[in-house]
């Protein structure tokens, strides 16, 4: 029997990037809950990846406070991914983080057969640098523009308008988390549901206002009750 025609077969890569606000206001309950939540969602993300074995999920993370730095710079297979806790201090240079992610998603760095990337932005405040410039840099990249972008507003002081601009899809509003338990729940949703949607090989019509986005089921908008009085942000 002749061999299968063609060269080596491979799954389609899917980039997942955490973008985490590590400014001073995140100190305490917020950053603790965030670290806990990301630890907790590794297994569910692995389960999503196992349910979609034709997608190779690789994860990175970038933090921003004074400037932006890659926390996990190497795209790491979700099955090998480990989270090391973040600490918080400094301002909120979100624009810088967006520019760094834009560089990572440049066409030359991305496989042309890749699935849409998933970007999850978590922030509790207002950007202290040029957010619009950073967002433009991201959206100027084809892979940035086609990425599934999710945002979680932590506490009452987050700039939801900025987060809406980042998401760029009126059908997917920013999630809000008012307490630690709620943040864990929202992060779990943000790490699994968009991932599952982006893993689907289904096509979307290009440049159409209502068909261009990867369809995402409506995110939960209700707020989970805090586990204790101390749990409220």
């Amino acid at each position, binding site marked *: 029997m002749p061999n299968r*025609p063609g060269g080596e077969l491979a799954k389609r890569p899917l980039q997942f990037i955490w973008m985490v606000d590590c400014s001073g206001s995140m100190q305490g309950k917020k950053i603790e809950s965030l670290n806990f939540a990301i630890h907790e969602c590794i297994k569910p993300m692995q389960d999503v990846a196992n349910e979609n074995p034709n997608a190779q999920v690789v994860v990175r993370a970038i933090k921003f406070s004074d400037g932006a730095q890659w926390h996990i710079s190497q795209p790491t297979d979700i099955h090998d991914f480990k989270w090391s806790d973040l600490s918080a201090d400094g301002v909120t240079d979100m624009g810088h983080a967006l520019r760094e992610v834009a560089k990572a998603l440049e066409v030359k760095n991305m496989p042309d057969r890749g699935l849409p*990337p998933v970007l999850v932005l978590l922030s509790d405040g207002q950007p202290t640098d040029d957010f619009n410039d950073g967002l433009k840099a991201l959206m100027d990249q084809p*892979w940035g523009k086609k990425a599934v972008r999710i945002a979680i507003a932590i506490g009452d002081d987050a700039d939801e308008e900025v987060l809406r601009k980042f998401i760029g899809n009126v059908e997917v509003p920013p999630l809000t988390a008012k307490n630690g338990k709620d943040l864990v729940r929202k992060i779990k949703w943000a790490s699994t549901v968009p991932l599952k949607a982006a893993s689907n*090989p289904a096509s979307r019509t290009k440049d159409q206002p209502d068909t261009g986005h990867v*369809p995402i089921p409506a995110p939960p908008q209700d707020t989970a009750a805090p586990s204790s009085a101390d749990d409220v942000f």
Partner: protein
Amino acid sequence: MPDGRTAYRWGVLGHSQLGASHVRQGLPNQDAIRFYVLPDGSPPVLLAVADGHGSAKSFRSDVGAVMAVETAVQVCRDFLEGIGDAAPSAVKSAAEQHIPPRIFQAWKRRVTDHWVRNPFSEDELARLADAAGPAARERAARGEQPHVAYGATLLAALLTNEFLICFQLGDGEILAVSDATGEVARAVPKDESLIANETTSLCQDDAVRHVQCRFQLFQDRPPGLVLLSTDGYSNSFVSSDAFLKVGTDYLEMIQTDGADTVGTNLPKWLEEASRDGSGDDITLGIIYRREPPLLKPAVASTCESSTSASAASGDPPIGGRPGLDHGAAEPIEPCATETTSPRSPLPDQSSPNASGTGDPPDLMKEAAIEVPTRTGAELPPESECSAPAMQIAQEGGDKPGAADPATQHVESQDNFEASRTTLFRRLTDGIGWVFGRKENG
């Protein structure tokens, strides 16, 4: 230059494989394929493949894909019947101007008619709401742009004794393989903007602006193979080169093992590609030359060593480009008159067919395409329509065995979900490959 009396014969293989991810999700195959070739393999040959989007908003794209390939083959057949003995340059111009918009309008009319006779069910709308939100559901329930639910890509090839015309809307690949040099070329250049599962589509109102058309006049001999595939296939390979290798490998296999063997193994190979690669539905159609028989693919050095012999006989020099790697992909150059500007709108084709029979609209009643007839030995200038990448060597030296002239068709082994309609294919001896369709009760 073929004189129109050269007796080329062709065979066609095709298979559409349900994707591994769709098997897991219990979804139907959303690709489709249709081709037309006479039992004796004489031209013309028509081949069309389509990829239904399968997204939440294109929840009837399996139907849309079938209608796309059926419409494409019908429109191309009508076109060929109308061109008579027209000059190639006139054929090219007429094809670019008329075929895409006619396909797109006819497709839209067919899917709209299907929606009128089969309104979206509550189940469909509920699944849409779950997957894409309540706003999407409301738009669909109001009947806004129902054709979006049928969205699909479309690739088509039309082959005669003298030329190859390719059309592409959306992702997927059309490859042409020279049996003289083994060169694998993209008959239509890759659209680099189509990434991350985004594609242009039949459901776009401005689809004619996005379609790519390529016309190739055969310099000496037509290609050995023309392959059309949906993007599930190319997305299954680790690299572009790994995918393009299929052209070389299929050529060699058809030449050495025969078309029957390739056709028998096609379902297994495509299933493996989906399982270990993209997970998507995969559809592949291959037009292969039966007469003159396929030559063994020759490396560049072999071609060069044969040049002096064929030149001495008065034959045209063997083509191929200096420094071209064996099996490397080179795009077929577009004609100088290639345009992507909006086409003139066709006359209004009136309301959707409401006969309820499900028959396609009668395209024969459309205004005839007037194409200037050929006068004398009129040929287009080289710069306009030739494609230097596909110059084919004259036969000479080693002459391999002929491609297997036996069974040219392969019955597809699609795995369809029992839904509103059941699609089945039958191979006939009369007019090639025909889709049959029956409505569930």
